[in-house]
């Protein structure tokens, strides 16, 4: 009996010891619906590191969460292009040591050295989203650019993203201006372009514009590439076009937050996501453009073209108010 008790006490002591050891965790903040739960669970099972996973739905929300929390609260976050630039400027990011990432070579080189972080000192590309035009080829003749959407035959037949920068940006691009142009006259022209399209617009929706195409509510939409591909899965007649006069690019990136308290685990987590099979799982569920060269559905030439003809949305500082006022005027 005594032996049993000693044994039990020993066990207790041992378990006490292990729990005293530093618990392996990594604190991750990511876009909502971007990584399937399964991927997180698999990582936890394999590495024994617990992932505290939080989500945000805009870059600004991420910025607010980081600036209002104690240093070391978050380890890995996924800001988009312009937010990476801003965070570098505010000295919020840790320099990355790519030597610690065994799967670094999986990243397709075309995605590196983007304008917002020229040497990838702080960020590595994760997924690329682009805005595209999608249309039901059964109901609508070929569309190649925004100006095709002005055709009066498409009355109430278009859904646009409910996003002032992307949608006004598309109008600007249609007029051959830069997506980040905030010249008053150019914005006024964009407004006139919108007025020509007005009767054709059925709705602005950012939550699920694909359902407009899937349910035949509209035959045309300007939406994110992943949404368009999901719509296409439902209806193969839906065609996806990269507009001739340009479109928005939005690259989300892996970064490690300055002062992160679990840097080792952060590298492990990023390294895991860089694996081919993990990346495949992610883009199966959320079909954005993968930056992993072994899981890409595009040739290098195609990717180069997509990157060259699209434009990143940039922070226009105070001038955001111009976009916002125009947006209010449009509605």
């Amino acid at each position, binding site marked *: 009996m005594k032996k049993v008790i000693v044994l039990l006490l020993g066990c207790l002591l041992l378990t006490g010891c292990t729990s005293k050891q530093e618990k392996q965790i990594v604190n991750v903040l990511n876009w909502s619906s971007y990584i399937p739960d399964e991927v997180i669970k698999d990582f936890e099972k394999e590495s024994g590191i617990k992932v505290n996973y939080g989500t945000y739905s805009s870059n600004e929300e991420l*910025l*607010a969460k980081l600036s209002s929390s104690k240093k070391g609260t978050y380890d890995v976050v996924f800001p988009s292009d312009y937010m990476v630039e801003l965070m570098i400027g505010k000295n919020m990011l840790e320099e990355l040591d790519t030597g610690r990432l065994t799967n670094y070579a999986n990243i397709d080189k075309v995605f590196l050295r983007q304008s917002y972080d020229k040497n990838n000192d702080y960020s590595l590309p994760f997924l690329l989203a682009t805005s595209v035009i999608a249309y039901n080829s059964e109901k609508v003749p070929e569309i190649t650019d925004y100006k095709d959407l002005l055709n009066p035959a498409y009355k*109430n037949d278009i859904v646009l993203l409910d996003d*002032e920068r992307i949608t006004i940006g598309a109008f600007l691009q249609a007029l051959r201006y830069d997506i980040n142009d905030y010249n008053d006259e150019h914005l006024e022209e964009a407004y006139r372009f919108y007025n020509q399209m007005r009767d054709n617009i*059925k*709705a602005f929706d950012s939550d699920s514009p694909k359902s407009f195409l899937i349910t035949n509510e509209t035959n045309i939409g300007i939406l994110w590439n992943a949404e368009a591909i999901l719509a296409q899965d439902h209806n193969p007649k839906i065609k996806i076009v990269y507009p001739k006069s340009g479109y928005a690019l939005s690259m989300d990136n892996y970064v490690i937050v300055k002062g992160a308290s679990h840097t080792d685990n952060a590298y492990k987590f990023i390294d895991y996501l860089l694996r081919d099979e993990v990346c495949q799982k992610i883009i199966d569920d959320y079909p954005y453009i993968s930056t992993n060269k072994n899981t890409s559905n595009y040739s290098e030439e195609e990717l180069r073209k997509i990157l060259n003809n699209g434009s990143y949305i940039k922070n226009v500082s105070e001038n955001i108010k111009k976009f916002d006022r125009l947006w209010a*005027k449009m*509605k």
Partner: protein
Amino acid sequence: MNKRFNIEKYLFTVPVVIYSLLLILLPLLYVLLISFFKSDSYGGMIYTFTLSNYMEIFNITYIRIFLKSIGIALITTAICLCIAYPFAISLMSKKETTRNLLIKLVMVPFLMNSLIRTYGWIVLLRKNGIINSALVGTGIISSPLSLMYNNIGIIIGMVYTLLPFMILPVYSAVSKVDPNLIEASYDLGASKTKTFTKIYLPLTISGAFNGSLMVFIPAIGYFFITDILGGGKIMIIGNLIKNQFLTARNWPFGAAISIFLILMTLILVSIYKKLGGKMDDLGGM
């Protein structure tokens, strides 16, 4: 004895006071405070005093949004009144058990999140939705009606969501009307319309105004209805405020519009008080 009573009184009121201070008054003061700040371009604030956010409201673009919101809210209120009165009056002729059951049914929708209910309307109203398929299928109309992604959709959504807030106060006012008065009115040869305008309406006007407030004020701010059923094409004050906080990264301006909206509400409530309404009846707000 008296002292103990006091302790009990504090025991029960203090939590409520703390709750109101912490969760209502403080945030409200914070909103008031930041409405006088400048915004920086990253969604932050520059802590210098300015009135420019309030001046900005009087930009023609925003005035148009205010007028549009008020228009939508007024139409919603009018339709709710037109439904609530006949409903409340017809309830009076029912047995008490049926009456209670029907009133409870009015409240049943509150058991479910209003966002989900609004999404439910999409299934009914869209181009290939249940209503249009039924009408086209039976040959009543030849091409589908545009029931949503326009003003009609917004009004349907608003009326549907806010109707209970009208029915309850109107019903409570109507149920207090002495049935003898109605009987007397009919005995003296008054028509149904005349009975309504001469007896029901004057006796229940504060209930009607109470209900109108409870419908009108939220109708200005329910941005999710214009987003979902209006297809995001129409902006009301609620959307404008939401945009300032979520996309335009201009919290001070959003705060200024909110304060402006609160002032508008206070004016309406003071009119209500002038008309003899009781503040207690507005408790549901």
